[in-house]
Structures are given as C-alpha cells and as structure tokens.
C-alpha cells in the first residue's frame, strides 16, 4: 500500500508538470477555442440525433378511443388525410381502441404505455372530442381534431376539441434514444478532441532525454499514469470551460428549444445520467488515452506520431459507430458486445443509461473499464520498457539465439 501511495504521488508529480506545461502556453488557447471552428461536427451530431429519432418511428402512435362502429370510417379518413402530408411529416400510426367505462383513465394509460410513444389520444363523443396530448407535441392535436371532424358526416357542424395536457410518468422512448445518442456522440466528440492529445506526450520525454531521469526515479507505470492524468486534467478544463459556456447559453434559448431539450429524458433520471456521463467520459478518455499513450510511446519521431493519427481516428470512429448501433437497438447482441468490449464500453454504457433505469450494470461496467485502464497502462509501460529502454528478459523466441560472444 505504501508503494502504491508512493507511486500515486510520483504519478501526480508528473501529471502536474504535464498539466502546467500544456495549459500555460499560448497554443492552449487555440486548442481551447478549436470547437468554434468545427461546427460541422455539431451538424453531424444533429443529423445523427434526428436519425436516432427516426429509428423509433415504428414505436410512435396516436390513439383514438372510439366505438367499433366508428372505426372503419376513422381509418378511411386517416388514410385519406395522411396522404396529404409529405412523407417526412406524416403523423404517427393510428391505433383505434374500444372505449372502456372510464375513457379518460384509458387515455392516460395509453400515454404511459411502456411499449409505445403515444403522441396524443382522442376520446369521448366525436362531436365534443377530448384530446390528451403532451405539451411538446404541437402537431398531433390539430390532426386528431381534423380526423374527428372528417370522421363525422360531411354536413356536421364544426367541432371544437377540449385539450388536456398529458404529463408522462416516464421518459418517452424517442427522448431516451435521443438522449442515448447525444451521450454517445458527446463522449465520442470529446474523446476525439482530447484523447488523441495523449499520443505524442511521451515523445517530449524521448526527444529531450528526460525519460532517463523519469525512469530512474519513477516506475514506468507511474510515468504513464501521470501523463494520462495530466492530459485528463487538460481535458476536464476544456470540458468545464465549454460546459459553463453552454449552460450560460442555455438561459437564452427560445422556449420551444428549451421544451425540446426538456423532452430529452434519460431513463435513469437526469442527475444520475449526468454523473454517469461524467464517469463514462472520464473512462472513455482514460481507456482510449492509455491505448494511444502506449502506442505513441513506441514512436521515435514526430513523423511516426503523425502517421498514427489516422489509425487512432479510425479506432475512435469505429467505437462510436458500434456504440451508436447499440444505442439504436438497446436489446440487441450488438449492444451487449459494445457494452462489454473495453474500448466501446463507456460509449455504449452511456447510451444504456439513457435507455434503461437499471443501475447495477453501471457499477459493474465502471469497475470493468477501470481494470482495462490499468491493464492498458501496464502493457504500455511494459512495451516501452522492453522496446525503448531495452529492458526486461529476452523473449523466449530469441533465447536460443542469444549466446554469449565475449569473455
């Protein structure tokens, strides 16, 4: 334990040096404001989130609680009216339900149906219909009202529906999936920006020969951990800065945008989701960073480090794609694989937090991911010790050839 504390202290010394050396430079300002220059990535995120919403269209419904004898006419009118809308703006699929003794209670139950995202419920007498719709939905109520009007005879007087605001007892499936995608994309975006910074950090020590001083004083595992933590500090500073900026901007959002954001309701609850997002961002950074650090430490020149940037980006995009697929199909084998595979696990588990309220898998995942961080650091240090410092025992496949030639 004493040795462990000693190593932690040494790692923190290196982390502090790296943090200060990175942050106290003019170049850091350029790095800090880089996101301003790449709005295009945000656009990609927006498209992705929208497509994630599309992915749940088959679970979206509007419900009409009407007697069976009215159903055929309503279905026919729905078909006719629906055809008037452009493809991307058509209302959700209509479900017709026979009324029970208490249609209002039946309507509330439909809104809270776990199987579907119900955008609105029409019930009661068609000449004086009642509409139960979530506040966020601006299009369903007029459509249901028009559907009720069209279902009545052509000479029926114009009806006026009574609207009731539906408050969901749970997050909408679309909102969950969109939250999931935003979590996955957010972590991808941040690690894409930040984890790649770690690749070249050992190059400074190699080029300046400081590595010999560090290796004599500190176990290499502590050197690697220190460099990772130092750069993670830089990442946290970056995220903190932009988080504060975005929170400040949030106060100036128009009410409709604020409502839309309000519909992003992760299944696990917003406060826990925020904590898990922070934890999974940290672990995604540490996991990818430890791998990149280990690989980058083997590079002996700036040119080699630059050449590593392509495979590194490909790995990151690959993990993003895997986790996105997992968030889109939370119950699939792809999701299970993405949650277990170490490099995609933080992304996929962040998506899971949006789609499922169960907490214990997160505790398990965090421990699992930390184990892999330790393993990657240990492996990186070992490869560095053997490949760069030329220490360690001779690999078994070379032992037979390693005969003494002097003395």
């Amino acid at each position, binding site marked *: 334990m004493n040795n462990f504390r000693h190593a932690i202290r040494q790692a923190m010394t290196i982390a502090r040096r790296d943090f200060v050396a990175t942050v106290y430079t003019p170049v850091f300002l350029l790095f800090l404001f880089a996101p301003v220059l790449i709005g295009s990535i945000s656009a990609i995120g927006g498209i992705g989130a929208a497509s994630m919403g599309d992915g749940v269209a088959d679970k979206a419904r509007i419900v009409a609680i009407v007697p069976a004898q009215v159903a055929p006419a309503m279905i026919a009118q729905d078909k006719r009216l629906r055809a008037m809308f452009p493809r991307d703006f058509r209302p959700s699929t209509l479900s017709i339900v026979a009324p029970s003794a208490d249609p209002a209670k039946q309507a509330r139950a439909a809104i809270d149906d776990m199987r579907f995202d119900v955008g609105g419920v029409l019930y009661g007498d068609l000449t004086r219909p009642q509409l139960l719709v979530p506040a966020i939905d601006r299009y369903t109520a007029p459509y249901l009202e028009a559907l009720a009007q069209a279902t009545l005879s052509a000479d029926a007087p114009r009806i006026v529906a009574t609207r009731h605001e539906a408050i969901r007892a749970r997050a909408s499936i679309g909102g969950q999936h969109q939250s999931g995608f935003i979590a996955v994309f957010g972590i991808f975006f941040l690690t894409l920006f930040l984890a790649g910074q770690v690749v070249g950090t050992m190059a400074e020590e190699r080029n300046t020969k400081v590595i010999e*001083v*560090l290796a*004599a*004083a500190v176990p290499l595992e502590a050197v690697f951990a220190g460099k990772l933590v130092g750069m993670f500090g830089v990442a946290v500073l970056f995220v903190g800065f932009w988080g504060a900026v975005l929170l400040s901007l949030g106060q100036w959002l128009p009410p409709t945008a604020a409502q839309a954001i309000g519909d992003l309701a992760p299944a696990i609850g917003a406060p826990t989701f925020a904590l898990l997002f922070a934890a999974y961002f940290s672990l995604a950074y540490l996991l990818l960073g430890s791998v990149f650090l280990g690989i980058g430490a083997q590079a002996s020149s700036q040119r080699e480090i630059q050449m590593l940037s392509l495979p590194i980006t490909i790995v990151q995009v690959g993990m993003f794609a895997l986790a996105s697929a997992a968030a889109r199909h939370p119950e699939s084998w792809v999701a299970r694989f993405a949650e277990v595979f170490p490099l995609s696990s933080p992304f996929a588990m962040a998506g899971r937090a949006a789609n499922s309220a169960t907490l214990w898998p997160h505790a398990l995942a965090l421990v699992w991911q930390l184990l892999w961080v330790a393993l990657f650091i240990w492996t990186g240090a070992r490869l560095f010790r053997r490949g760069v410092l*030329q220490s*360690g025992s001779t690999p078994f496949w070379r032992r037979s050839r*390693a005969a003494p030639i002097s003395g």
Partner: protein
Amino acid sequence: MADERAVTAEHLVKRYEQRRVVDGVDLSVPAGSIYGVLGPNGAGKTTTLRMLLGIIEPDEGHRTLLGHINPREASDRVGYLPEERGLYPAMKAKEAIAFMGALRGLDWAEGRRRAVTMLEEAGLGHAADEKIRKLSKGMAQLVQLLGSVVHRPDLIVLDEPFSGLDPVNQEKLEALILAERDRGATILFSTHIMAHAERLCDRLAIIAGGRRRFEGTVDDARATLPSRVRYVPHHPAPAIAQLLPADAVADGGAWRFQLPDGGIEPLLVPLIDAGYGIAGLTIERPGLHDAFVRIVGQHAEKAA
C-alpha cells in the same frame, strides 16, 4: 558505517540481442565513499549503472542499492545524472530542479526554495527564472546536476558527469562532489577521463568488454605498473648503458628505465664510482592513466 555497502553487484549480466554488453560485473561500493567506474567507450559502464538503478533489469545476477534488493524501494534516497542529459526546455531552472526533487519525494515548494539557494551557490543565481532553453549547455548540465542532489540523497550516481563541461565548470563539479561526500553521501560516477578519477576516487573499478578488470584504490591501480626512473648523468657516455638495467633507453641526455625490484640505491654506487655522476634522478610513479591503458590494453590483446 565503514562496513556498510551503498551498492553491491554480483555477476550482473545484460544481453542485447546476442551480445553480452555486461558480462558478470561485480561491484562493492562502500557507503560514504567516492567510487569511480572507469572504462573505455562501450565498456558497459552506463548499462551497469542503469541496472544498479533499476532502469533496466539484469538478465543475470543480483544487486542491492542502499540495502534494498529492489532499487525502486530506495529511489527517494538516490540522485542520478544520466549520460544523456535531459531537461524540459520550457521549464525555468529553479522549477526543473524542484521537479526533479519532487520526483524523489521532496516537497515542491521546498525544492524551489533549495533550488534558488543552490543556484546562487553555484554562481547561477541569475538563471533561476530563466527557461532551460535559454541556458548554455554547461549551465543546463549544472542545473540538472543540482536537480539530482536537491533532495539530499544518500547515494548519487553520475554517468560521465564531466563530459561537455568547460574546465571552470569541471572544477565546480569536483567541488560539489566533494561537498556531497563530506555531507555523508556516497558518490558513484562513471568516466573515461582519468584526471578526475585520480583526484576524486576513494576506490574505483575498471570495466572493459563488459567485465570488471580491476577493483581497488587509485594507488592499487598505479601499483599494477612499476615505477619508472629518469637518470641524468653528469658526464654522459655510451658505455654508461653497461651499468644500467637492460630496458634502459637513452632519451636525449637522460636515461629511462623501470625501477629495479631491489630499488635504485644498488645502481647508484657503481655509476658514481665509474665517474658518471648524478646530475638528475627522478623516480616517476605511473599515473592512473598509465594503469588504465595497460589494464584495458591487456583486455584488448586477449580479445584480439
């Protein structure tokens, strides 16, 4: 204290690919001494020091550092100046010293305070707030040396500390080594410059071809070669050679030969009686340089 060993090494072996660059080196460094590891380029000095410090692991053999089998356990009590100097160019001199101290467990603020004092004592007070990249090579080297002793270690390992320093800075470094020894530290340094070793070392080892070829004091090393005599007669004549040892050779007006086993006195009486007289007589003890050349040369002959 006199019996304590700061460093021991038993049969250290290190192979790179098929070559044994260190081939069974034994060392025993008394605590509180200045111990030199001498050897020609490529002899295995640096590899030996790196194994002692735990930077690399030996393929065979054992070592202890300040009584610890695992050198890492003593790392806070050790200072190290590597052969390839390395400092962060963007760091200020005092920060670089404090950082090196912090790696060895010294509080950062205390390290900074000591750094300023040490820089002033070394005549580099003006450079305390200068970035390393702005210092000359020699100044940067001194800064690194100060960084390796700022935490007041019990053992200081210096790999070729004098290389790259001008004579003034070499003198400063010698003074610092002696001061550290007086403080009670053990100093283990490698060099191939004999003058420094001769002035500083209490004991030394000569390594060549990956093996230890000699271990002892400077006097012990010198004693591996006989003393030389330089005799200048009052009245030179070719016949004088008949009274001198067989290996005597003329050198201008003087004769040079190895000091006979029986001493110089038995030779002098016949020379005086024969009327050659004595205008000058010098017994020259061989230097460490001569001993080094002979010991390393013997190894080279064997290897050839």
